[in-house]
């Protein structure tokens, strides 16, 4: 039921319109500015497990997080901060221990950026402008990170729930590097990602 204060405001809307839509409309309407205010929404899941800076503990911690109740995992083909293969291992270990694939949300950042020092990477850098490299990258992930089939899955497993694309430079021009809070030598050297 719409607040009573709004009922008078609703009156002109009644003519030729269905009542049933009005409570929703009026709740979102600012009576002074006639502007639509989007209702507050809360995406699910709210909390994502960030696998950055876990290094050789990435698999163990990813599994632990998923078993503890996280439903979403964030990783990236960005070896300075992330270990994507170990995130895959941890995810698979969680699934084998009983976590359902269809309850998980796997997210990765498929493109390496020029800011990624290739010396620390065992991967070929991928450029968004090169279709062959993109095909190779997505295809390789399917083969590298196969997930076991699970009961109750709706449709084929896409393998990746969400891919996040980064701009050519991780550190955008004009964005000052925060002076504080880059923990660890590697982070200080790179001064980039971290969660």
């Amino acid at each position: 039921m719409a607040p009573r204060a709004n009922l008078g405001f609703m009156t002109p809307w009644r003519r030729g319109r269905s009542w049933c839509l009005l409570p929703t409309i009026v709740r979102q309407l600012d009576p002074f500015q006639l502007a639509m205010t989007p209702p507050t929404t809360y995406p699910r899941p709210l909390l994502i497990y960030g696998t950055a800076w876990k290094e050789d503990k990435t698999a163990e911690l990813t599994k632990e997080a998923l078993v503890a109740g996280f439903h979403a995992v964030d990783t990236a083909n960005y070896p300075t901060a992330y270990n994507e293969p170990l995130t895959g291992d941890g995810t698979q270990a969680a699934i084998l221990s009983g976590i359902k694939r269809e309850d998980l949300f796997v997210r990765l950042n498929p493109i390496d950026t020029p800011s990624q020092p290739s010396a620390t990477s065992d991967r070929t850098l991928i450029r968004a402008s090169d279709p062959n490299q993109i095909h190779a990258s997505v295809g390789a992930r399917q083969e590298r990170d196969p997930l076991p089939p699970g009961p109750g899955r709706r449709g084929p497993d896409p393998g990746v729930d969400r891919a996040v694309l980064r701009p050519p430079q991780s550190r955008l021009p004009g964005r000052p590097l925060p002076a504080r809070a880059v923990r660890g030598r590697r982070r200080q050297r790179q001064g980039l990602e971290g969660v």
Partner: protein
Amino acid sequence: MFETYVPHRIRRLGVSNFALPQLTQVYEAATVKPALVQNRFHRPTSFDADVRAFCADKGLTYQAFWMLAHNPEIMASELVSAVAARLAVEKELAFYLLILGLGGTQVLCGTTNPGRMERNLRAVADFASDQAVRDALQPEVEAFRRLLQELTPQDGEGTKM
């Protein structure tokens, strides 16, 4: 190019470290619209107020990272301490909940501590499932919005992307 993989190989696409002009450009040009923006939530970008408004308008999810270690003013604020005390949680978790209270947001949590994983998950689950918890947080979320505005760099004070 990645659009051709949606939704059979990749369910949804998102973007990361995008300022509003880039986001607008990609959003308008893309056939498959990004569903998510993952950005650093910190002072130099004015806490992405403009990006978050765009996300809310278009129905995109805003995913915050880089928060805990890069927001000393917020972590030291009376507000975060007060929320932490009221909910009997750590300040880090109070900060997460305030960001979630903004709406349309997700938070990246990278803790390595099993106890903290469980406490964070439990508090966020309460927030997600209990309207009373969200309602009780609302005045603090409004105070949080004001704090973000106060901390936003003014012209000449910092760079706004």
